[in-house]
């Protein structure tokens, strides 16, 4: 009940915004070839719902696969870096490269490597979402309570035991906050990939633009932000499920 009520405040500006634009466009203050009226967007969604749905599924699949790859590769990489001070100093600067690479400029290269279609889109989603996973996992793994490390050392725990029973669980809250950021980025990466590599909502936006169907462009943009929201909600749920018993971040009522 309180969860439902917490949805109310953010709905107020949304509804106000929608009504405002509806009238701004209807009264001709904003020309409808620049911004479609919200009602036109809704009718565009209904009109091309089957294409939208198929495209959304394609984009979401690519984003999810890209995110999973980021999680697996990124956290394994972070674990390796956390094991040796030298490795961390040697390789971490190059991990930052993933953060700074301009994905829109790299996408054509990805097409050359992976061809048109899903693999390119997944690679693009992967590249933009891996850095937050690496950075947050590494931060989490490096912030283990020294007294607990002493405790494990006292009982002569093996390195693998220290990793699985102490460092990783201790890092979980950080890992989840990295994944939350990565989830949003993976959708952006997928759509950029689709602009160049084809398929999904990215293509749909591109086609609608060339046909000057601004209502359809907005419809696709709206759906793609919804995908991002759904993915972040999914990560939030996983985080709540994993941390609910013990971590204060998942015990209060606010996120």
């Amino acid at each position: 009940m309180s969860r439902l009520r917490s949805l109310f405040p953010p709905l107020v500006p949304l509804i106000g915004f929608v009504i405002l634009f509806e009238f701004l466009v209807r009264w001709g203050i904003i020309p409808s070839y620049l911004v479609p009226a919200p009602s036109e967007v809704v009718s565009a969604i209904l009109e091309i719902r089957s294409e939208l749905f198929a495209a959304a599924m394609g984009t979401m699949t690519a984003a999810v696969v890209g995110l999973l790859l980021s999680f697996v590769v990124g956290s394994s990489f972070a674990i390796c870096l956390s094991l040796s001070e030298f490795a961390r100093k040697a390789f971490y600067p190059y991990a930052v490269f993933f953060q700074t690479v301009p994905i829109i400029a790299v996408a054509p290269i990805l097409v050359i490597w992976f061809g048109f279609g899903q693999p390119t889109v997944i690679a693009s989603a992967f590249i933009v979402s891996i850095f937050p996973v690496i950075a947050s996992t590494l931060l989490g793994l490096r912030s283990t309570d020294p007294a607990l490390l002493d405790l494990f050392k006292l009982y002569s725990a093996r390195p693998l035991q220290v990793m699985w029973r102490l460092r990783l669980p201790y890092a979980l809250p950080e890992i989840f906050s990295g994944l939350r950021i990565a989830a949003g980025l993976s959708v952006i990466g997928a759509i950029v990939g689709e602009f160049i590599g084809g398929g999904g909502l990215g293509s749909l936006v591109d086609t609608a633009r060339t046909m000057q169907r601004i209502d359809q462009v907005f419809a696709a943009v709206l759906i793609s932000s919804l995908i991002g929201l759904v993915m972040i909600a999914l990560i939030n749920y996983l985080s709540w499920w994993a941390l609910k018993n013990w971590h204060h971040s998942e015990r209060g009522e606010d996120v």
Partner: protein
Amino acid sequence: MSTKRSGARLEFQKIEKQFQGTGLVIDRVSFCVEPGEFVTMLGPSGCGKSTFLKLAAGLDRPSAGKVDLDSFAQANFRSFVFQDAHLLPWRTVIDNIALPLELTGITRDEARTAAEASLKRVHLTDAGHKYPNQLSGGMRMRAAVARALITRPTLLLMDEPFAALDENTRHRLQEELRELWLQERMTVLFVTHSVSEAVFLSSRAVVLSARPARLLLDTRIDLAEHRDQNLRLGSEFSAQMRILHDAFKSPEASV
């Protein structure tokens, strides 16, 4: 569970400890803890009391001098209780207590059976399935003591374990610890800054000076074996307190 191990013998020989930045912290301190003794260590904060515990635990090395221990042959002969309970928040109480055994490679079920027994000894039987954040400070500390006892240590090292608790809880836990020690007769080295705690708990007390730590006083506490709260009101208790107080408040003890 009544096989009694005799306590370990612990000897500090001309211990010197230097830290980068702070310089000399411990200045050639020698003293011995005989098997089955309960020794408390008093001193102003920052005087290196905890360092002695770390040295005894093998978690740190002296800059000069030697820590002599007779029980190295036994696995897990020493246990450590930290100032805050330092339980793993993602594990239930019972799994926290089982941890030291689990790390030695015995199965989770066996470890749990032993943990149940250990839990009973600290009067915490009903809390086994709870998570640490559902417990009061006193209960958390009981769990930490149970975790330390599960390996049946011959040397128990305690670093101001009751300092953060309210007075009632602190007194009750002191009484229980004293009884546990009378039953098990393990060697205990207990660091505190409370004179009354030292008198109530120990069979011997050692007072250190301010940094660099030197030995100011090494005295027996000649009080009854079984001690309860009434003891605190007697004249013998205050006489012992005075002896420690005088050493503690002497010019050398302060900075």
